[in-house]
Structure formats: C-alpha cells, structure tokens
C-alpha cells in the first residue's frame, strides 16, 4: 500500500515554477529520501504534503487523505521535524511536549506516559525541566524529533533534519528513526544534502532539480544509471556542478541573519 501518492504536482510562485509536474509514491513502512540542490523544490514539496502550502495543480494523497480537502485528517497522520527550529525557547522541553500533545488531542494519561517514554528515548529525560533556550542545538533537534513522534504518526517528515548536527547526534537520531521504522512500520520521508546519509538509511531516493524529479530508485540503481561509483557522483552527474542561488523569502533571509548573529 502507498501511504503517499503524488500525481502531477505543481506549485508556482509568480513566474517561478518551484515544483514542476512531479509524480511519485512512497510505500507504507518505507524510508524515502528527497535529494536536490538548494532551491530545487524539496521544502516546497514537503510543505504541500504537510498542508502548509496549497498546490497550484496536481493531486496528493497522504495516508489516504487529500491535504487540500481534509487537512486535519492528513495532519493527524504525520509528525514533522522542520528545517528550522520550531520549538518555543521560553518553555521547557516537557512543556513543549505537553503543548504538542494537547494540540493533537492525545488523552492526558497516554500523553504523560508518551512524553516520559519519548524524552527517555531521545535521552532528554533529565533535561525535561530545562527551558529550551538553555540546551544545545543537538538537544533541541532531539526534542523536535521526540515531539514529532508524540502523537504516534504513521509518517514522519524530516526536512534536512541533520543540518548542522555533529556525527554523534546524527547517528543517534537515525538509530531512533530506524528502530521506530522497524518496530512500528512508521514511514520516514526526509530531505538532506548529505549523500552518505541518504545512501545508508534510505530504501529509495528521489533526486529533484529545478522543480522536476530527474531520477528515482535505490542508491544502487542511481549509481548504475549514471555509471558512477558513489551516490554523490551520481547526484552531480544528474544535477550538474553549477552552484545554485537559493531564493529565500524575506523571512528566511532575516532568519538566516539572526541565526548567524546568534552563532548557530
């Protein structure tokens, strides 16, 4: 069964086609990677899958529901870790979890048990009562992962989840997610710039460039298709070596400036 089905999906911003007629399926229980240069359309696609953006045309089905017509049914079925931090710094780790649980309507007894279980799972239990602004970037990321899993979603979306994480935290994070993928058949959909990460954890990979999917398959298939030795070479063969300018919104740009000032 396909838990995500995308047909002829397009999204334009003014003149620019950020996502241009893409189609793909993700099977239930699959770990699926979305690769592409900056500005290729990865985040735009994830935003459409997760109800944050409306498609210009095309159809999407997530866990059997259309994000445009039944956003709440779709929202209940996934958890998400965004590209940028999305926790409340002033609240504690536990309060961020509690907030999420109430918002998703997880009943109190189950919510409290899940929060304890997940904070232990990501090894943040002893920092549960620290305000998020007091903990490290790696801990925030782990908190976001724990939060994304709180309502036991069928699908987890991760948009460049390991950006700026050290190898220890990255390995930790993937071991949780792979474990969860095996035990609960949770589908994992992620985008990344790290080729070795995609090669190691993803069962299938889609490469997107200029809004179009240019290749899709297992890492071995992509290497064979391009007659290359590594996924990185396959990626470069498919997308070229020109450096891309990322077109950010004013908010993105300001966030980047702010982050640079705070030294994250």
């Amino acid at each position, binding site marked *: 069964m396909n838990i995500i089905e995308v047909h002829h999906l397009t999204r334009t911003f003014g003149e620019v086609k950020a996502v241009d007629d893409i189609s793909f399926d993700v099977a239930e229980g699959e770990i699926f990677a979305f690769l592409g240069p900056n500005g290729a359309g990865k985040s735009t696609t994830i935003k459409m899958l997760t109800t944050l953006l409306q498609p210009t045309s095309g159809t999407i089905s997530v866990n059997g529901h259309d994000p445009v017509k039944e956003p*709440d049914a779709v929202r209940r079925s996934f958890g998400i870790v965004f590209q940028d931090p999305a926790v409340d710094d002033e609240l504690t780790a536990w309060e961020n979890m509690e907030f999420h649980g109430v918002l998703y309507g997880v009943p109190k007894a189950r919510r409290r048990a899940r929060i304890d279980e997940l904070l232990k799972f990501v090894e943040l239990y002893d920092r549960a009562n620290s305000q998020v602004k007091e903990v490290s970037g790696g801990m925030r990321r782990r908190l976001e992962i724990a939060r994304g899993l709180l309502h036991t979603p069928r699908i987890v979306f991760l948009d460049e989840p390991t950006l700026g994480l050290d190898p220890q935290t990255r390995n930790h994070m993937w071991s949780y997610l792979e474990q969860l993928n095996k035990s609960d058949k949770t589908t994992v959909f992620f985008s990344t710039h790290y080729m070795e990460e995609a090669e190691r954890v993803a069962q299938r990979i889609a490469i997107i460039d200029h809004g179009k999917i240019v290749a899709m398959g297992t890492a071995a298939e992509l290497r064979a298709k391009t007659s290359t030795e590594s996924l990185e070479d396959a990626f470069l063969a498919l997308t070229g070596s020109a450096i891309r300018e990322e077109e950010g919104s004013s908010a993105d740009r300001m966030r980047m400036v702010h982050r640079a000032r705070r030294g994250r």
Partner: protein
Amino acid sequence: MSSMGPAIYIMWRRQMTRFVRSKARIVASLAQPLLFLVTFGFGFSALYRQAGAGNYIDFLAPGIIAMAIVFSSVFSGIEVMWDRQFGFLKETLVAPVSRVALMLGRTLGGATVALIQGCLVLIVTLIIGFRPASWWLIVPALLVMALIAIIFTAFGTAMGARIRDMQGFQLIMNFIIMPIFFLSGALFPLAGLPAVMYAVVRIDPLSYGVDALRGFLINSASFGLTLDVGVLVVVAAVLVSVGAYFFAKIEV
C-alpha cells in the same frame, strides 16, 4: 473538526507561562505608565486645579491604565511575527486544529496578560493617590479593561500575521498605536477641543474605552456608558474576526 476547547486552552496557557517567566517584561511594562503618571500627574496637577477642573491624578489614572493595556496587548498580538521568525508558528499550523481556535487562544492569552498588567497599573495608581468614586464599580471597570485588551490583542495579531519584520512593527507603533493613544483623551479633557481634533477623537476606538473607564472609576463619562460599551463590543467583534481571517491566511 474536534472541539476547539483544548487548543484554545493550551494556546492561552503558553502565553501565561511565558508571561510569568519574563519578570523583566513585567517590570518594563510598569515603567512607562509610571513615568507618565508621575510626570504628567504631578506636573500638571497644580495647573489643572487652578483651572477649576479638580484632581488631575484622578482624571489621568484611567487613561494611564488604558495605555498600559493597549501597549501590552499590541506587543502580545504582534508576537505572531516572532513565532513566524523563530519557526514555532509552523508547529501550530500543522496541528489538526482550526486556525480560528489558534487565533482565539492566542488572543485570549495576550488579552489576559494585558489585563493583569492593567490591574498592576491600577494598583500603582492607588498607591500614588488615585481614589475611585466607588470601590464597587472597579468590577465593571475590569470588564472594560478586558474589552480594550481583546481589541488591541486582536489588532496586534492581525498585524503580526501580515508584517514580517521589525520595521513593519515600528511603523505600526508610530503611525497607528501612538496616535490612537494620544488622540483618545487619555491625557486631556475633551471639553473645548478644536472641532477637527474632537472629530478625530470620536473615531478613535480607544476614546470609548478611556471614557468608559472614567465613567466607572470617576463617574464622568462624556459619551455615555451605553455608547462606550456598545462601541467597544462591536470593535472587539470586528477585530477578532479580521484577526482570525488574516491568521487563517498565513502561509509559511
């Protein structure tokens, strides 16, 4: 759609937690009203009395209470902009709850914070020497304070959903909020104003809030309490609807 109650509640509680935790903000929010109260209050007191208009502190106190609520409310509402900047907004927008519930929870939270700050300023005015006409009428005055808080938090939320940076925020403070405050009659009596200015005062919604507070606290409402409260309720309903509309339109 499931019930909106839990979502409204948890949005409200988040604001409360953040408020209780930011001692600096509580102190800072009291500093400005106190400054106005002391400088204007004692500065113009003698002149006001000589003009035969009575006790200026009594006249000024309701205006300063309204001021504290307005500024606190707008700040709370505009926090939507910060939530967008720091990413937390997305966490709420992908949750399986209606945006109306998110907006209502946020507005009620911000309004509660503003109301608490208004009460703190009321206590400060009492310490400085303000005496209400009747202690009992502080109760309806609190309701007026709550209405002012809801109006300006909803206004801030609507603006925060539209603007993206500090420049936009400065524009709103300098070109909307400051004029609304200065033209509300919070600092001066309306009798004998030039006709044009009086007309502007009459279209400023805060004028009715200040007038209602004076009506309950010092028994002197120049527009009449029924009109005052009526205008406040209508403006609150309109701004909450506009805020909910803008909030529902947010794309991140």
